[in-house]
């Protein structure tokens, strides 16, 4: 159960983890011949700096953005932030700057001047994202995309990063344990959210990453919303809809801890003593068979396409995931990041995607049994040096479904 020869620790060494991430980015800058990374995306800033920022709505996040600048050859990143107290303790004082608000011309002038002074007016910069003001402010520099550098850094996690994901997942799972008893007829979806969020924060979760989903799933597609592709509509947002005895709900929720995201998925039944039918039990069993078949292939060197094929074979030759999603996706400082397995990027893409130690896979197949609804859950694993290790640990009850 090692990654790069290192066992996944129970408790992450956070300072060591941040150091390792900075070293990775610094090496990648060197290799790419870039002078600096300018990062605006929340997950990228979190990865590059380790800064703790409050979870906020998208409008606030865009206007009051922290910005990270990683300069080639420097021992620490620079952080421009309205939340200075969230900077990690080891960040040197002269690397912690006031906010630069890249939506605003004043902010862009300041950061453009700072970059020119530090790196010279012809520096090669990579940016993950631009505002119009920033595009104007950086027009004198040579600007390329930071996507390749960030993807290369983030694709394979260190053992400490995996420990963070496992902790986030654990908090998410404990909170869900406390939501379960509320699943009685008459409870509203928003009441489930209320209990969930309360417990997440009490248990040490840092932020809520997504409005938790408690989607009621009917027996047949015709009762689901219209879709562009004819496949199942999921996930649809939570409302104050109340739940009824026997309702099947598909759950999807995610939180963060130390910048790393969890991803929880299960199927539950509403009622005081929920008892799945034989067909419902079979759906859960099939879900577990599909994941077991994919996991049986999981080790370094295997391609994503081999996983797709194993999952499809375990489902009688049919694709057991939604048209608009995937068999599995990665998770890290974003709730869905590379590797993406089974998307509409096609077989060629998956054939070139080779599993490596430190990759995280969130398996989220969907088993649909027209006329009797379906089963969906999510399980997380890390690819290790010689196989895989679980990062999630949550029961399937009231289903059994042991393969």
């Amino acid at each position, binding site marked *: 159960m090692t990654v790069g020869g290192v066992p996944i620790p129970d408790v992450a060494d956070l300072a060591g983890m941040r150091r390792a991430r900075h070293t990775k980015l610094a090496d990648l800058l060197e290799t790419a011949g870039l002078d600096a990374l300018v990062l*605006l*995306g*929340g997950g990228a800033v979190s990865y590059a700096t380790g800064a*703790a*920022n*409050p*979870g*906020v*709505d*998208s*409008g*606030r*996040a*865009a*206007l*009051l953005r922290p910005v990270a600048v990683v300069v080639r050859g420097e021992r620490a990143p620079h952080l421009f932030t*309205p939340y*200075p*107290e*969230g900077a990690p303790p080891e960040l040197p004082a002269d690397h912690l700057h006031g*906010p630069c*608000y890249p*939506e605003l011309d*004043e902010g862009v002038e300041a950061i453009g001047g700072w970059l020119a002074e530090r790196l010279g007016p012809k520096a090669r910069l990579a940016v*993950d*994202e*631009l*505002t*119009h003001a920033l*595009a104007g402010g950086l027009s004198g520099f040579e600007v*390329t*995309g930071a996507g390749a550098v960030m993807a290369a850094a983030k694709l394979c996690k260190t053992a400490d990063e995996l420990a963070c994901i496992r902790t986030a997942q654990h908090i998410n799972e404990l909170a869900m344990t406390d939501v379960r008893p509320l699943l009685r007829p008459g409870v509203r979806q*928003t*009441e489930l*959210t*209320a*209990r969930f*969020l*309360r417990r997440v*924060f*009490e248990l*040490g979760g840092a932020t*809520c*990453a997504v*409005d938790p989903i408690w989607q009621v799933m009917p027996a047949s597609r015709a009762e689901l919303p*219209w*879709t*562009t*592709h004819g496949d199942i*509509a999921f996930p*649809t*947002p*939570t409302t*104050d809809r109340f739940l009824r005895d026997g309702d099947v709900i598909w759950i999807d929720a995610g939180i963060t801890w130390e910048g790393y995201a969890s991803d929880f998925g299960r199927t539950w039944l509403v009622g005081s003593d929920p008892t799945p039918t034989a067909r419902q039990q079979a759906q859960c069993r099939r879900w577990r068979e599909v994941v077991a078949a994919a996991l049986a292939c999981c080790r370094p060197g295997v391609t994503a396409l081999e996983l797709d094929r194993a999952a499809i074979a375990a489902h009688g030759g049919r694709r057991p995931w939604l048209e*608009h999603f995937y068999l599995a996706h990665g998770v890290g400082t974003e*709730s869905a990041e590379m590797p*993406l397995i089974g*998307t509409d*990027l*096609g077989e060629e893409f998956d054939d070139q995607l080779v599993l490596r130690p430190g990759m995280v896979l969130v398996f989220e197949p969907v088993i649909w049994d027209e006329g009797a609804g379906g089963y969906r859950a999510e399980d997380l694993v890390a690819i290790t040096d010689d196989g895989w290790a679980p990062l999630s640990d949550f029961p399937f009850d009231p289903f059994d479904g042991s393969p």
Partner: protein
Amino acid sequence: MSATAARRPGPALGTMASVEGARVDFTRLRADRRRRLLEAMAAAGLDALVLGRPANALYASGARQLWTAGARPFGPGCVVVAATGRVHLLSTWDEGVPPELDHDELYGITWNPARVAASLRAIPGLAGAKRVGTDGLSPGFVPFLRGVAPDAVVVDGGPALRAARTVKTPDELACLATAVAVAEAALSALVEALHPGVTERQLLGRYAERVAELGTPTPPSDAVVCATPSSGPVTRHHQAGDRPIDPGQLVVLEPGALFAGYEGGIGRTWLVGAEPTSAQRALASRSRAAVDAVVAACRAGATGEALLSAATSTGETLGVGPVAYGLGLGVEAPLVAAGFGGATVLAAGTVLAVQAWVAEAGVGGFFEREVVVVGDDGPCRLSRYGHGPAGTR
């Protein structure tokens, strides 16, 4: 009398619909927004808008989509075409999509850039667009759009979006007032839960629970509780901690709420388990005086500079945080802070959060936030709540 004739807002501050209709006329609200956006596009000479920000997509389409925390990476989430007046939305399903959007105006989730381009090419009127405004950029977007609209120049859509969004309609103001009322309800729950020994985390948990119970389950910010130290230096923090709160600490409470996407909020500072000291009362007076001065300056025609002057007019110095920022579908322009937004000119009907933080070593910190509507004759406060044991004059 038409079916959509305005009723007086009266007590219409609930979050649920009634049999006679929703408390806010959402059909009219969406129609007004679309009309304003198309007018702003015409004034700015834009043939199309390609929107990536969730709030802009919501403004244009009226669709209730999945809420996720943080800024979304830029991508074509919603497209508005001036020539057709149509709004096209990235949505694989019609759940949450208002009836004025037809199925052929929805395009589905894909991971494949070639499919994104194909979806956009299928949008009537986009291929011939000459000027396309966006609300963000990714490094590859300009070449990508060339494959969709070969003659298009990509320009900043921000001015047109601000022209449409900044001044609120009466329906939007009703939504904002509702969101403020929910935030006040959450503040009340926080005050009830505040006692010596409770932690910031527990209070944050209670806050999130309360806003969700009230039917608005997506907190606009997790930065809600900050217990300030009563000894030593004082800084404001935004992450909840595990330390039990001591008697005599001043605790900042700044809950928010999102109703139909519109953000309300309020900020107060409460004292825990002790009588206020004269130093704490003095701090509270300074904070309230600073907020009141800025609120009083919130009148049509006032500049950001005037707000910054007002913020220091009572003797305070400007800190890192904003003095004022816009509220609508979440936080929006203008942003007025030290070194930022001085040239802003306020228009009547703009909604602002106005705030002040003052701190003194050995005493603690005091923060207040009010939400106001800028008016021709002066400000109108949407937030209304007592000022706590230390802040009551």
